[in-house]
């Protein structure tokens, strides 16, 4: 492994970030609006879905995961996998009680 590789350059320019920011604001508006209408059990699902999209945008663009080396994404998936699996197994108890 080359010890001297210093920095991977990330995409420059402000434009993309401002766009993402606008997108995030729009999604916030959307999620507030959706919460207002009564769609029963789907409320929480849509809210979490929108939150996930927002989180993805922040991760991929603001946090440069998209332009970082693959291993970072793999790591992130490992962490997410751990949380999700704990979640599922825990509910194997609670949802059948």
């Amino acid at each position: 492994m080359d010890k001297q590789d210093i920095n991977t350059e990330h995409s420059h320019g402000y434009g993309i970030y401002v766009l993402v920011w606008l997108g995030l604001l729009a999604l916030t508006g959307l999620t507030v609006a959706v919460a207002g209408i009564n769609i029963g059990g789907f409320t929480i699902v849509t809210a979490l879905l929108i939150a996930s999209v927002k989180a993805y945008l922040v991760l991929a663009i603001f946090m440069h995961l998209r332009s970082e080396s693959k291993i970072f994404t793999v790591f992130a998936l490992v962490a997410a996998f751990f949380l999700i699996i704990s979640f599922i197994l825990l509910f194997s108890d609670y949802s059948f009680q």
Partner: protein
Amino acid sequence: MASDAAVIETNGNEPSYLDYKGKHSGIKGWLLSTDHKRIGILYMIGILAFFFVGVFLGFLMRLELISPGETIVSAETYNQFFTLHGVIMIFLFIIPGIPAIFGNFFLPILIGAKDVAFPRLNLFSWYLYLTGGTLALLSIVMPGGPADTGWTFYIPYSVRTDTNVILSLSAAFILGFSSLLTGLNFITTVHRLRAPGMTWFKMPLSVWSFYATAWVQVLATPIIAITLMLVAIERLFHIGIFDPALGGDPVLYQHLFWIYSHPAVYIMIIPAMGIVSEIIPVFAHRTIFGYKFIAFSSIAIALFGSLVWAHHMFTAGMSDAGQLIFSLLTMIVAIPSAIKVFNWVATLYKGSIDLATPMLYVLAFIFLFSIGGLTGVMQGVISIDIQLHDTAFIVGHFHYVMFGGTGFAMFAAFHYWMPKMFGKMYNRKLAKIAFWFIFIGFNFLYFPMLVMGWLGMPRRYYDYLPQFHPYHLISTIGSWILIIGLIIMFYNLFKSLKSGPIVTEKNIWGGETLEWQIDSPPIHENFTEIPVIEERPYVYKDNEPPVEKEETV
């Protein structure tokens, strides 16, 4: 690694890391050192000190249990003893144990690096460790005394008792962060600092196991951190989270506790397995059998280990689906361990075996860990566990895996690496005598627990029914035999540090990993020149028979 000897030429004139003079000298040169080897030694001092406290408490507990009724201490004191004993042994001795001492010292050397990725963070972890340890012991002198909850801190007792639970909780919290930062450091080190040519499948098996362990540390520790913090806050502010009096669910606490604490048992054992995989080929003087299977089984254990936590809760009233899934997964997690055991035994086949002290400890490890593991499998079978849960059987099981497993592996590592770390040799004969005392005493101490557990002797019992007296008596006598062994062993090691014969040879055991190609003790930067790795580890070229009849991978 049989890379050309020419690549690694250590300069005989450079001072060893022990004599090295940096910016600071004297005691400061140690306390402020970011050298991974010195930090490893610092950990060793801390961990051994706490170990002696823990072991002494174990000794007192056995003394109390030698006969029914009050023998030496009151019930309250006994309850505090086993809690403190558990907290010290788990959080201060066995979890940090091998990674913090031997991982710190040898991981960078084994991958051909000069240090870990974040040396200052490494030192910081040690200070966290020291702080946590001090907090845990501080409760002894505080009014109210140490916590009496058991190391599991089950709600609601832990919010009701008057003892210093918060102190123990914060100790565990801080120690968690120390362990987590070590893990983070090791992952980054393995990814970024391997020597040129050191591909993943050329890494020594102990590196694989440190790597797998580090992941468990990083992923599971935050869960216990937050859980224990919530208990502390619940005690302080009456926030309703787990306390049933405030609507909370005490079983949820148990889930969260074990989400960490089951993987934690693999934090304890995987590094020990790494040590075993390191030592066996050296003393059998042949290549390891099934390198890839051993490497992958470390990862598999780490992976599946996160999925079985609720086998500690089979009597807690989980749903049937929960019982089924967790019992099934527990069975499956035993398989990678089985694979390792068989591969180790197979490595002895056609070897040229030298039964030196490290090897003795390792063989004892295989035997004792098998007993511990097989009893673990029994506990994983739901209907059996209904009978065994919270009995002395469990106590027997976990001492077999933790002490008989990790403890013995650690003792093996002391005897194996001591000449490299300090350039001194112990008395080999005395070491073997100590071994036999420890091994025999160990079985007398813990085997009776398995029997009486099945017969219905619950754990965390200060007093017991007369029919269990014979077992307790044998157990206590076993602890005395064990004491003698431990005292001889540590006496031998400490004495040799001071006045043992000096080892100048680089490779006294005939090992083939990188640490045996550098000075004993190593120089400050480990290598004068970073080695270039060309071969797999454990090659033992001179063993290759003239006619190629070796089976290939």
